[in-house]
């Protein structure tokens, strides 16, 4: 008997709570109705319903994307303008109660001149970084392509390999890579101690050697950077129509020909995409020399106060100019390799 009594009590209680909630909701509804009526919102609503469908849709769309629009006008665009102005100033500092102060004329390009002429050490770092990016980016894309092709074969345990190849995507950060390079974890000992490298130097032409050695010296870095790119290539490969391959095979095409004449041309848009993606990701990792200079010198007092003392040595303006130089390097690298791909893929058109 007790068993039945308790649930019914709970049921009663639930009904009470439910009716109470209903009542409260009802009051809130009435409240909102009055609110809408007296603030004129219900009038607006009526007018809104009379608008043509197209304008209604536009208003809805703008309401939905309004967070981004606000962010654009209050955050992203001001940041961009500030960055330009900062790079084109002499000193950029904060005085309490007065605000941000800018000295120097923008058309003097003080900081850029300084980087290019008066700072040989930093200039050297810039060149080294540019070379490094220019070597690593194509290697990453090529490795990603090869690994994508391998994973696209009919193999058992593809899921496991894919899991392993994708681990770096979640772990990759500039600090992690800096950590690896400090502890010599960027290359596997069997490669580092010369068994493979001596083989390469013996059997390949000199021009190849340097690139190949660079690749093997940074093999972990290159593989770790290529996670997303592998998946992009793999997704592209799996979307391809198998009937094209079958037709080509019947015509007697070898695997080699299939790759160069069917697979590669279809992947060219993805190669562009991966070049852009790799360049942006790699250039912005905090293990590269320019980013490190920026991190150290943009806020030397480590207080974020924006004081004038930060600006004595290098400071914000100098760092901003450096970051624009890094951006230029990125654009040059992307432009150069896109041009290479474009010229070499011309015969497919």
């Amino acid at each position: 008997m007790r068993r039945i009594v308790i649930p019914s009590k709970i049921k009663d209680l639930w009904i009470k709570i439910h009716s109470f909630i209903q009542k409260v909701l009802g009051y809130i509804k009435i409240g909102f109705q009055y609110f809408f009526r007296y603030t004129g919102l219900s009038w607006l609503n009526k007018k809104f319903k009379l608008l043509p469908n197209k304008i209604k849709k536009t208003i809805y769309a703008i309401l939905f994307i309004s967070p981004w629009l606000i962010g654009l006008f209050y955050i992203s665009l001001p940041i961009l303008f500030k960055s330009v102005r900062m790079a084109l100033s002499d000193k950029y500092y904060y005085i309490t109660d007065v605000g941000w102060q800018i000295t120097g004329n923008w058309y003097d390009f003080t900081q850029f001149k300084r980087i290019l002429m008066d700072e040989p050490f930093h200039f050297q770092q810039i060149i080294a970084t540019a070379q490094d990016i220019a070597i690593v980016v194509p290697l990453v894309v090529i490795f990603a392509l090869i690994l994508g092709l391998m994973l696209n074969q009919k193999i058992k345990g593809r899921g496991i390999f894919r899991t392993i190849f994708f681990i770096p995507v979640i772990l990759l950060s500039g600090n992690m890579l800096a950590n690896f390079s400090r502890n010599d974890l960027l290359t596997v000992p069997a490669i580092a101690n010369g068994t493979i490298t001596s083989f390469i130097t013996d059997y390949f032409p000199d021009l190849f050697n340097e690139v190949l050695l660079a690749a093997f010296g940074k093999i972990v870095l290159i593989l770790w950077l290529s996670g997303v790119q592998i998946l992009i290539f793999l997704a592209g490969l799996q979307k391809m129509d198998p009937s094209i391959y079958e037709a080509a095979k019947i015509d007697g095409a070898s695997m080699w020909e299939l790759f160069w004449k069917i697979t590669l041309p279809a992947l060219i848009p993805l190669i562009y995409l991966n070049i852009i993606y790799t360049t942006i990701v790699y250039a912005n990792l905090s293990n590269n020399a320019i980013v490190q200079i920026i991190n150290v010198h943009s806020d030397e007092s480590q207080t974020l106060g924006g004081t004038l003392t930060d600006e004595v040595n290098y400071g914000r303006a100098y760092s901003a100019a450096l970051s624009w130089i890094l951006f230029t390097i990125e654009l040059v690298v992307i432009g150069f390799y896109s041009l290479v791909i474009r010229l070499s893929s011309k015969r497919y058109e």
Partner: protein
Amino acid sequence: MMKNNKAKIRRILFGRSGNDGLVFKVVLYTLLIGISFIFLYPLLSMFTKSLMTLEDLINTSISWIPRTVTLQNYKTAFEWLHFGQTLLDSLKVSIYPTIATVLSSALIGFGFGRFQFPGKKLLMGIMISMFLIPSVLTYIPTTVLYKDLKILGIELNLMDSIKAFWVPALFGNGIRQTIFILIFYQFFRIIPDELFEAAEVDGASTLRTFLTIAIPMVAPAFLICGLYSFVWYWNETSLARLYFGSNYTTLPMSLDSFISMYSSMYSQGNVTLDSVSSTYNIGVQYAMTLISILPLLIVYLFAQKWFVEGVDRSGIAGN
């Protein structure tokens, strides 16, 4: 007979069409396993080193298998990190902005994906080109801007608090948020129009169709974006240090300060058994590194499918 056998062996070894023969398979698997090893090499190496005693670490003849397995390094690392507090900070610093990112990305993605309006292409073009601007470029001006940022007349006081992460995320300026907006855009775009039209005929408002039809249909997008956003905020140390100063110490930030302390102690000279510190040594450093990535690895193992799906479904490869 002999000829027939030869042909058979040949077919087994090299296959019919070049990529199904035994030789090809063996080479492929060897390469894949080798490459997998290179992928995992840093982690494996760190793992075995983190289990070594000080004597084993200094002994250069030992590279993989420790003579005696010890957990002392992990103990020291946990204590140095103040693990409980740091983990809590890490979770806060990554979960709050993730929620903000996902919510605002869903709204913005819906706005772009569902409606046709004049200037849409232009706005999306602006969004994508803003994404191409490197993050380094924005570091310094961001701190300058956030110092006294006002949005619609509201003083935000972003610096030195988690707000510096989640408020911009609410306005579409989270870490790599454009990717998430595009993922939602793709998801919303492929929902058939008829569904929405039917609901509208029944008298549902746009907000209601968004909440009751659109959102349940893109649950995977929420998962994908949430996971990536969580991971990226977790790994972000440069921005975290710029914004929070010492108010929050995340696991990766803690690891960084340990490493800089360690490298300043041993910047020159060899480490011998007499001079090595029981706290600041490579074993503890590796143990700490593994501890700091362990939460990410756990998330990855359980949600691996969704990370992979993220790349597949973002629509960047193909359409």
